[in-house]
């Protein structure tokens, strides 16, 4: 248990260092950008008609003249205190914008994460047990095709079929247009979340399914499975008693590590369905030159990804004794 604590502490420190580096890298990237925040947001024509003083005022607002290093430290020190700056496009504190967007994104991602994880795991077992048979080919084929399909195109196709042709599901947004926030029902939210969640789940299955299939096939060929068979256990009994535990662990680790991919997928899917989540905010911020918001989203998403990796590491060393011993020796 004490060892576990040390591993956790080490991982936490590593994560914190990486997070600092990520924010530094992100800051570096946005500050070398040649795009002029005034031109993108005010417009060439409006700038031409403005007086020099007005332009100077705007330049100060968008922070054009401050040197990058100074900006980074003032930004970072404020960030640690919880002040992420003010979004230039939404005209609200970044933390507030992110909290609001994250809420609608998070449950979308969580649902897709759980569905794709369980479905992928089950399909992977099914394929691995029946390796080489028709069902395995079907599942492997499905996994290969979805891995090669861009998430946004699948989203477009689903949108076309269910929203345009069959007209059974709404075409976008997370709530009906023109209703007040108080009038939005849970039903509305679910209805608008179905297609994005389905798209994300469908594309998320392939990785975990293929991985589980390999592992399951490996387990099926092992000596202990043969011994279980010799003892008279039926196929599914043997799988339940000796197979599942062995493959569940790597599958869980993979699923925690795949948070980054689900996040990336959600950016694309949210764009197609005009779903007002974190991904869409990132795109708006990127296209509009809203640097504080873009930075905030980069750091928050990196934190989420690192949390996923951290959980995976912890899970691994907590459950699998072999890993623990291996680490101690190394």
């Amino acid at each position, binding site marked *: 248990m004490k060892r576990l604590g040390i591993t956790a502490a080490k991982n936490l420190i590593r994560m914190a260092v990486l997070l600092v580096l990520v924010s530094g890298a992100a800051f570096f990237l946005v500050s070398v950008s040649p795009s002029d925040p005034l031109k993108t947001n005010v417009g060439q024509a409006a700038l031409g008609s403005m007086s020099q003083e007005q332009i100077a005022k705007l330049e100060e607002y968008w922070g054009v003249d401050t040197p990058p290093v100074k900006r980074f430290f003032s930004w970072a020190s404020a960030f640690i205190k919880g002040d992420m700056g003010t979004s230039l496009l939404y005209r609200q504190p970044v933390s507030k914008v992110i909290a609001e967007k994250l809420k609608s994104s998070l449950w979308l991602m969580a649902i897709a994460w759980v569905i794709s994880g369980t479905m992928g795991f089950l399909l992977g077992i099914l394929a691995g047990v029946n390796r080489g048979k028709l069902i395995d080919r079907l599942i492997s084929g499905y996994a290969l095709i979805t891995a090669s399909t*861009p998430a946004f195109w699948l989203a477009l196709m689903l949108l076309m079929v269910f929203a345009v042709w069959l007209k059974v599901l709404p075409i976008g947004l997370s709530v009906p247009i023109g209703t007040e926030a108080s009038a939005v029902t849970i039903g509305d939210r679910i209805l608008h979340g179905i297609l994005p969640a389905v798209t994300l789940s469908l594309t998320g299955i392939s990785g975990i399914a293929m991985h589980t299939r390999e592992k399951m096939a490996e387990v099926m060929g092992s000596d202990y499975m043969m011994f279980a068979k010799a003892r008279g256990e039926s196929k599914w009994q043997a799988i339940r008693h000796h197979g599942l535990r062995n493959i569940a662990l790597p599958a869980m680790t993979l699923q925690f590590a795949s948070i980054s991919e689900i996040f990336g997928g959600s950016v694309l899917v949210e*764009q197609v369905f005009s779903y007002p989540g974190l991904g869409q905010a990132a795109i708006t911020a990127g296209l509009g030159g809203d640097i504080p918001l873009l930075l905030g989203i980069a750091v928050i998403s990196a934190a989420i990804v690192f949390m996923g990796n951290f959980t995976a590491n912890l899970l691994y060393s907590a459950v699998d004794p072999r890993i623990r011993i291996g680490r101690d020796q190394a």
Partner: protein
Amino acid sequence: MTEIKRGWNRRKTMVVLMAFSMIFLASVAILGHIFREEAMVTDFSRKNLAPCLQYPFGTDFMGRDMLIRTIAGLSMSIRLGLLTAFISAVIACVMGLAAAVLGKFADGLILGLIDLVMGIPHILLLILISFAMGKGFIGVVIGISLTHWTSLARLIRGEVLQLKESQYIRIAEKLGISKGKIAVKHMLPHIAPQLLVGLILMFPHAILHEASITFLGFGLSPEQPAIGVILSESMKYLAMGKWWLALFPGLLLVLTVLLFHYIGETLGRLTDPGHAHR
């Protein structure tokens, strides 16, 4: 036995299929480049046509032939994919070798760098890099090249770490040959097959990410024929029932990615001695 040897086997089928995929992809890349002018021709007398014999993929709101546009876009994707995957593979090779050869400090540094790149979701990092480069072609090339080397670098590092323990490398070290020379002369040839397969398997990711980032508006400019541009335009016309604008270009993109994947996997299997007797 001689009969089996002379006869047809799975390896040969794989080679033939692989050759067909390569020819198909190459011809798409070349045709698209030749027809890139035609892809931009607008003709308002034939706008918004559904697929028919003359225009199998239909035409768009400006009367552009979608078949030619799609092929031009795919050609762009393939060439961009080649370029970025190649740069990525070079980075991966250098990083992987350096991490394994240059000692503990460099190893830690490079592993940290890998974690750093993997820490930000790919799409978001692409957005950031594209933003830093002021969008457009260069942003896409640099973005994709800088984000895709990580897993291959890890693979090569692991491979080289194993190689380091082998007899012939140890002998070379004892003979006083420099680290750099050992890496290039004795290790590189050994990892070359994996590098090649890794390079080809990187194409699908590179192509998909290019399409995604262009689709989001951070990549190639709308004037260029690109699959991402076509699909993002089609989004506006989807609600009006113009399904062909999105369906066919997307299908061909999926096909392209699948073929690249097949080539990579097949090449991997053919070069793996463990599969020699299939």
